[in-house]
C-alpha cells in the first residue's frame, strides 16, 4: 500500500490524467467489444477525435484563462455568436469565407478584450465579469435571432467533414492551436508572466510584472478560440445557431475538462497537455456511452460523477505530497510571533 502511494506521488498530474485516459480506453474497448462492436475501427476513432475538437478549442483557451487566475463563463455565447456571424456573412458564397472568418475572430477578440479589461482594470472577479458579458451577449442573441440563420458554402463545410485518414481536419487545427498555446506558455515572456500572475498576483506585481497584460492576453485568446469553435460548428451544421453554444454547456464542461487535466482552479499551475487529456477522456466517455446506447440523461449523471471522482484523486494526492514548510519544533521562533512595530499615523 505504501509503495503504491509512493508510486502515485512520483507521477506528475499530467501523467495521472493520461493514466486515467488509458484506463478509460481499456474499459471502453472491453465494454464496446462486449456488445460486438469495435472500439478501434477507423470510423469510431474518427468520431472520438471529432468529439474532441469543439471542446478542445474552448478548453485550450479556458486553460490559459484559469492559469491566469480568472475564469471564462462567456464562451458558449461567444461560440453561438461566432457561428451566427460566420454563417450570416458567408451567406452561401465561397468568396466571403475569408472575410467572414476574419470578422468572426475579430469580434471574438473584441469580446475577449472586454472580458480582460473588466477583470484586470475594473478588478471584477472573473466569474462575475464573464458571467455578465455572457449574459449581455445572450440577451442580444435571444432578442435578434429566433432560429438558425445564414448558410455556409460547401467549401467551408468540407473543413468540418473531411480528414486525413481517421483524423479529422478540425482536430488537426485544434492540435495546432494547442501547440501554439504551449509555445506561448513555455517560450514567451507573456507565458511565464501568466503563470506568475496566476500563482500570486501580489507577488507578481511586486516583482515588476505588468499584471494586466497576461490576464488580458489570456482572455483575448480564450474568446478567439471560442470563436474558432463557433466557426467549426457553423461548418458542421451548415448554418449559424443562437443556442449551439449554450446547449453544449461548453462553459462548465470546458472548466471541468481543464480541472480534470490537472490544472489548479485557483490558477498558476497546470498544462495544456493535461487539458487535452481531460478533453480526450470526455470524448471517449461520450463515445462509449453513445455506442452502448446509454440514456442521454444518464450520460450527464456519469459525467458529473466522473468529474468529481477524477478531481478527488488529484486533490487527495496534493494534500499528501505537500511538504511541511517549517519543522514543528521551530514554530515558536518564527518571525510572526515577534511583536510587529507599530507604524506612525
Amino acid at each position, binding site marked *: 500500500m505504501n509503495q503504491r502511494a509512493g508510486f502515485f506521488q512520483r507521477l506528475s498530474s499530467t501523467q495521472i490524467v493520461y493514466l486515467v485516459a488509458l484506463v478509460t480506453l481499456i474499459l471502453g474497448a472491453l465494454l464496446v467489444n462486449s456488445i460486438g462492436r469495435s472500439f478501434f475501427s477507423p470510423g469510431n476513432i474518427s468520431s472520438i477525435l471529432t468529439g474532441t475538437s469543439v471542446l478542445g478549442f474552448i478548453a485550450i483557451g479556458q486553460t490559459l484563462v484559469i492559469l491566469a487566475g480568472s475564469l471564462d463563463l462567456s464562451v458558449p455565447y461567444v461560440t453561438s455568436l461566432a457561428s451566427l456571424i460566420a454563417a450570416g456573412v458567408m451567406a452561401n458564397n465561397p468568396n466571403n469565407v475569408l472575410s467572414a472568418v476574419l470578422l468572426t475572430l475579430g469580434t471574438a477578440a473584441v469580446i475577449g478584450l472586454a472580458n480582460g479589461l473588466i477583470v484586470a482594470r475594473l478588478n471584477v472577479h472573473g466569474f462575475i465579469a464573464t458571467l455578465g458579458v455572457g449574459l449581455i451577449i445572450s440577451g442580444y442573441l435571444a432578442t435578434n435571432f429566433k432560429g438558425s440563420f445564414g448558410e455556409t458554402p460547401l467549401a467551408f463545410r468540407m473543413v468540418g467533414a473531411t480528414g486525413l485518414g481517421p483524423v479529422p481536419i478540425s482536430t488537426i487545427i485544434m492540435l495546432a492551436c494547442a501547440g501554439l498555446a504551449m509555445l506561448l506558455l513555455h517560450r514567451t515572456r507573456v507565458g511565464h508572466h501568466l503563470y506568475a500572475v496566476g500563482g500570486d498576483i501580489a507577488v507578481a506585481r511586486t516583482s515588476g510584472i505588468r499584471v494586466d497584460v497576461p490576464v488580458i492576453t489570456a482572455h483575448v485568446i480564450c474568446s478567439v478560440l471560442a470563436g474558432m469553435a463557433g466557426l467549426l460548428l457553423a461548418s458542421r451544421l451548415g448554418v449559424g445557431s443562437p443556442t449551439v453554444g449554450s446547449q453544449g454547456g461548453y462553459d462548465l464542461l470546458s472548466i*471541468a475538462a481543464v480541472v480534470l487535466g490537472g490544472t489548479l482552479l485557483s490558477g498558476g499551475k497546470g498544462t495544456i497537455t493535461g487539458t487535452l487529456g481531460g478533453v480526450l477522456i470526455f470524448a471517449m466517455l461520450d463515445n462509449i456511452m453513445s455506442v452502448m446506447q446509454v440514456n442521454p440523461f444518464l450520460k450527464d*449523471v456519469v459525467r458529473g460523477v466522473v468529474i468529481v471522482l477524477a478531481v478527488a484523486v488529484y486533490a487527495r494526492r496534493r494534500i499528501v505530497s505537500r511538504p511541511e514548510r517549517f519543522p514543528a519544533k521551530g514554530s515558536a521562533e518564527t518571525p510572526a510571533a515577534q511583536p510587529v512595530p507599530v507604524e506612525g499615523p
Partner: protein
Amino acid sequence: MSTALNSERSAILKQNRASRSERLLRAVRTPGGAVFVLLIGLLAAIIVLNPSFGEPSSFIRFVGRTAPIAIAAIGQYFVIVGGEFDLSMGSVVTMQVIVAGNLIRQDDSKVIPVLVLMLVLGAFVGLVNGLITTLLQVPSFIVTLGMMLALLGLVLYWTGGAAQGNPADSFRQIGRGGIQDVPVLDVIPYPVIILTAVAVAGFVLMRRPYGRMLIAVGDNPEAAALAGSRVWWVRTRAFMMSSLSATVAGILLVGYAGVHPSVGRGYEFTAITAVVLGGVVLGGGRGWVLSAAAGAFALESLFTLLNFMGLQATWRDTVQGAIIIIAVAAASRSWQRKRKGASSAAHDEQHQLAAAPTPAEGTEQGGERV
C-alpha cells in the same frame, strides 16, 4: 469588579463610537448598504411609472413573488461568505419540484411525509457537497458542478424530461396561498411569512458564534483552523443550509410555476447574481445576509421596472449581465477606497481613548474574564 470594568469599557466604547447618523451614512456607503439605497430607488421609480404598484396589496404580492429567489439568495450567501460556490442549487430546486409532483400527486395525506422527505433530501445533497469539498479537498466549483449535472440527469431520466401532473392543492397552497382578509394588505401570502422567518433566522444565525465563525472561515480558512474552528464542519453546514433553502424555494415554486423539469434552471446563477449585487464578495469573508436578500429584491424590481418601461423580455439577460458587472466594479472600488484608508476620524482628538483598560487583579491582561 467585573461589572465595574464592563461599564467603564462600555463608556469608553460609547465615547469612541460615531454618532448614529454617521454610522448609518458609513453603512450606506459600503456595497452591502448601497444595495438598500438602490432597492429604494428602483421601487420609487416603479411607483412613479405605475402608481398602482405602490398599493399595499399589490406590493405584498410582489414580495411574495420574489420570495423564492430571495430565499435561494440567502442560502447561497452562507456558501459564498464561507468562501465557496454552490452551482447545484438550480438542480436541487428542479429535483424538489419533480419529487413533489411525482410523490404527492392528488393525495392530501402524503403532503407531510413528502415534505419531510424533501427536506431530508435537501440536507443530504448539501451534506454530500460539503463533505466532498472539505474532506476530499475538491474545489466546490467542481463538486457542485458535478452534483448539478448528476442530479439534473437523474431527475430527467426519472421523468423522461416531460412535465408532470401537479401535486395536491393543499401542497400548492404553500406557494400560492396566504392569510386572507388582512386589513390594509388584503392578503399576506405564505411565501412572505416564510421569507421573513428565513431572513430573521439567517440574521440571528450570523450574529451567533456559528455566523462569526463562518465569516472567519471564509476570510482565512487557515487562520480559522489555527484558532480552533472545525473548518470542514462549518463549511459543510453552510452547504446544507444552501441546499435546504433551495428546497424551500422549490416548495414555493411548485405553487407558482407548477411541476416542470425547466423550473429552477439557471437558479444558481440568479442567486449568485443577487448575492453579489448585495455587496457580498466572492471568495468569502465579507458581506451581510440581509444585503443578499435585498440584492434579490433589487434584481427582481429591476426586471419589473424594465417590464413597465416596455422593454422586451429577451433583454432581461443583457440587463442582468450589465448590472452585475457595474455593481461589482463599483463595490471593488469602494473596498479599495476603504483600504487606502480615509481613517482620519480614528486619529481625531475627541476619538482618542480616554483611558486604557486596566488589568484586573489576578490576570495578566486587561479585559473581562469569561
